């Protein structure tokens, strides 16, 4: 684990989304944005703890996952602008970011739907004996879906090499978890299945890294699947780039409490504490900003797909 690299990735993701916020009002990125702001530590830590050959599956809120797993900012921005240089030639947009060549396999706009697909990939890995782990990311809304339980059951039944990652922000769109779940603790329920369980409420990327590395080690030894339950706070509205505290389903005070332990902020503090010089960090941040600005300009100037592309790739 390289703390500097981890911080770079965190900063790259946050910087990318800040750029999206700045440019979204231009109305050129015509795709519904589900912003990652607040969840960065979970994604960056887990991707860092996994190996490159390991597969990840995400959701419609996968800006962070895409960038952490692939580092492909050009494909990312171009996809948001609907350009032919995008990760899916502009056809998929923000909700379907994927780059299978980098093992960023699949994301989906329907809650919970990539979970069984990830389980299938884990089954495939087990059959092919290739020692690759699958990590599937989903929110607390997804565990309301029957398919989550079907998938968990099958993964435990077949003892598949898969890490279920529940990124719990207490909200399914605007519905609070207390209005949706009839059990006391998801960890308790899942612990009755034949799998490993871990959980944390920290926003410290290095803590989550340790937790993940530890559970991955146990998975390898035991051959069991694992379930990680991690809390975070969604900074922005469910879809869009604005704050939504005035709509009264949650409070600004709550946000401000979480903002004090912002994942990028505390990772930066950690670097300073371990002796990295502030100037070094500032230069690094500047370079990332420049790189991002260049990438977004490239995306703006890129071509749209030809009209004939409407009819391609329906069948393989």
């Amino acid at each position: 684990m390289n703390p500097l690299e981890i911080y770079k990735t965190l900063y790259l993701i946050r910087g990318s989304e800040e750029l999206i916020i700045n440019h979204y009002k231009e109305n050129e990125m015509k795709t519904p944005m589900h912003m990652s702001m607040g969840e960065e530590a979970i994604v960056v830590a887990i991707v860092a703890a996994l190996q490159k050959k390991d597969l990840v599956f995400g959701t419609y809120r996968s800006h962070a996952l895409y960038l952490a797993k692939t580092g492909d900012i050009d494909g990312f921005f171009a996809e948001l602008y609907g350009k032919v240089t995008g990760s899916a030639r502009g056809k998929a947009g923000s909700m379907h970011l994927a780059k299978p060549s980098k093992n960023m396999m699949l994301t989906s706009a329907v809650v919970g739907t990539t979970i069984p697909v990830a389980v299938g990939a884990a089954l495939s890995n087990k059959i092919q004996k290739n020692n690759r782990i699958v990590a599937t990311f989903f929110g607390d809304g997804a565990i309301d879906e029957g398919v989550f339980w079907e998938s968990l059951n099958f993964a435990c039944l077949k003892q598949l090499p898969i890490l279920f990652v529940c990124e719990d922000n207490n909200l399914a769109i605007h519905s609070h978890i207390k209005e949706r779940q009839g059990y006391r603790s998801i960890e308790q329920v899942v612990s009755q299945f034949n799998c490993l369980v871990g959980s944390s409420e920290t926003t410290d990327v290095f803590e989550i890294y340790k937790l993940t590395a530890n559970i991955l080690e146990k998975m390898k030894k035991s051959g069991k699947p694992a379930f990680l339950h991690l809390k975070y706070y969604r900074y922005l509205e469910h879809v869009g780039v604005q704050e939504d505290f005035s709509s009264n389903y949650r409070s600004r005070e709550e946000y401000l409490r979480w903002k004090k332990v912002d994942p990028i902020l505390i990772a930066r503090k950690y670097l300073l504490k371990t002796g990295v010089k502030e100037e070094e960090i500032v230069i690094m941040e500047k370079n990332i900003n420049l790189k991002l600005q260049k990438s977004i300009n490239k995306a703006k100037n890129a071509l749209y797909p030809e009209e004939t592309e409407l009819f391609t790739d329906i069948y393989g």
Partner: protein
Amino acid sequence: MRFIQKRLSYLLIYMAKRIITFEKAINEATIQEMERDSSVFLFGLDVTDHKKIFGTTQGLEKFGKVRFFGTPLSEDAMTGVALGAAITGLRPIHVHIRVDFLLLAMNQLINMAAATSYNSAGQLHAPIVIRAVIGRGWGQGPQHSKSLQSLFAHIPGLKVIMPSRPYDAKGLLTAAIRDNNPVIVIEHRWLHYIEGDVPAEPYTIPLGKSHILRKGKDITIVATSWMNVEAFKAAEILLSKHGVEAEIVDVRTIYPLDDETIVKSVKKTGYCIVADYDWEFCGFSAEVAARVSEKCFTTLKSPVKRVAFPHVFTPTTRVLENKFYPNAVTIIREVEKKLSLKEADLQGEDFYSWENKFRGPF
């Protein structure tokens, strides 16, 4: 001498024929593909039990429990599992003993598997075969006897096949397994017992090719699945009672649809009846009727007639079931109307033969 030679060649042709059932043809295609390609595996609810899905999964134990296994009752997740396996290099065959159960998996099928290639701009493929059994049995009622080919064919990204002969069952299933897209294979349960000539070696029939089941010059009957059996019976009677030569086009593949063969036939006969084993309203028969009307407008001597299910559910009681399902008699009567023929006396003709043979409970 010439006579003997002729007899001998007939004998050779006869000997070359290899008559097996549709069920055996499905089984043979599966086994041969699993032998040829180690990435092929078969799973589904109760595929390994003593009944082996009407015998079609018989003998697959030899491939081991990793490549042949039963599943929990989780149709949606298991379809997702098939997709996950498919995008990572395997070729799953997922089997449902009733197409009705596939409705539990529509999210994975339509939102996910069908859209995989498009959403990834062709970076991912989903080579999945989904076999689903349809059809009338013995009081199966509204939740055990749907067909749904129209529904599946409506979705871009899916292919849909409905073989009606053992020869097609083997060739089309083999092609489906080798195809890089999700292919729904819809099998009418009564067809499983049909016998026909099937070569022993593996072969494929391209998806998207219709087949002229019976040549004729007077009227075209476009049929799907079991309706081919009914149409064939109708054609025999139409010939004997009226001297009418009906041409039957077995579409075999619902999507991609080979409408060229249909159009060519209708341009020859000038009349068209579509006999589909599904609901008529917004059904596959409407698609065929629309295409024939567009492409044969000047040659059609009368509007295209559809013979399909009424807009109601399948009843359980036999009397209403008989009323629900169109059959050879329905087709004969429609042909007579089209060609302005007097209704033939059908007393003494043997209809519903399979239905009468069938005994419960399932």
